[in-house]
């Protein structure tokens, strides 16, 4: 018997919370995006742990899909960021607020 799954799951929850908090407090768009990656990784860890817990391959397959989605998201997200910030010195989320009210 290896480490109880609850440990992993709590770890994942903490990671998820850290990622979410990071997204809320960081101003750099790229770092915010990294925080989203943290959250996705937390989800992956959760899936794998549940997969082991339930003795079910499905969880691992889901991780596979999340990886693909994350990769696609990174490509698109970075493309948007590049298009947006190409001419600028800082990539701060707070600088973009023409649309409001």
């Amino acid at each position, binding site marked *: *018997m*290896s*480490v109880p*799954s*609850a440990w992993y*799951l*709590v*770890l994942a*929850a*903490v*990671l998820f*919370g*850290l990622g*979410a*908090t*990071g997204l*809320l*407090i*960081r*101003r*750099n768009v*790229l*770092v915010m995006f*990294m*925080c989203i990656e*943290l959250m996705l*990784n937390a989800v*992956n*860890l959760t899936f*794998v742990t*549940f*997969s*082991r*817990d339930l*003795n*079910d391959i*499905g969880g*691992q*397959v889901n991780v596979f*899909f999340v*990886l*693909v989605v*994350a*990769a*696609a998201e*990174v*490509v*698109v997200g*970075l*493309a948007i*960021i*590049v298009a947006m910030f*190409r*001419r600028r*010195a*800082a*990539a*701060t989320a707070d*600088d973009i607020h*023409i649309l409001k009210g």
Partner: protein
Amino acid sequence: MLAALLADSSGQALAHASAWAVFAVGAAMILTGALGVVLLRNPVHCALMLVITLFGIALEFIDQSADFLAAVQIIVYAGAVVILFLFVIMFLGVDRKEAISAEPTRFQRPLAVLLGVVALVEILALSRIDHWSAGTPSQSGALSGPGSNVQKLGQAIYTGYLLPFEMTAALLVIAVVAAVVLSRRHQPSASEMSELDQEELLSARRFTPPDQGDQS
């Protein structure tokens, strides 16, 4: 709570010390990395800390016998995603320290931390720490048993999960198109040239941050 967890596994603790060790190392890496991403002010450092987290996750995967995923995790994430991040950081030239203290809205950060903590507490409370999984086991194929992890994963993906697998193709197509659309520089026709110049001027003005001190 911790005691309960320990007691649960106390009988075989020694026999599985290695598993614990791997878990502990992985957890340490994950948390360090995550804290680094959230707290470090230089984006490049953040990206490097992200790598640490990703390695930690891979370690935990191995610990739970998800060998294939661990490999993919390293190849895709550490190998591709983070590199992409670094590339963009360098490309945009934003590898300077971020002024974390400058906030447009006062309540944002305390509230963010509060919400993060409360959300975590709520999830842990809902799971009662160690009562997470309650599902029917092995509904889409057993994980344990003979056969390698890769084989089982492959079989699952090509049978029950065939359709989602195909769907990822669409995602990649979109990613390609998106990259083309967004990173292609506009080729202005002659009539549009002046307008473009104007626009460029305008947007340059528009994007000038209100406070240059932000970027230290």
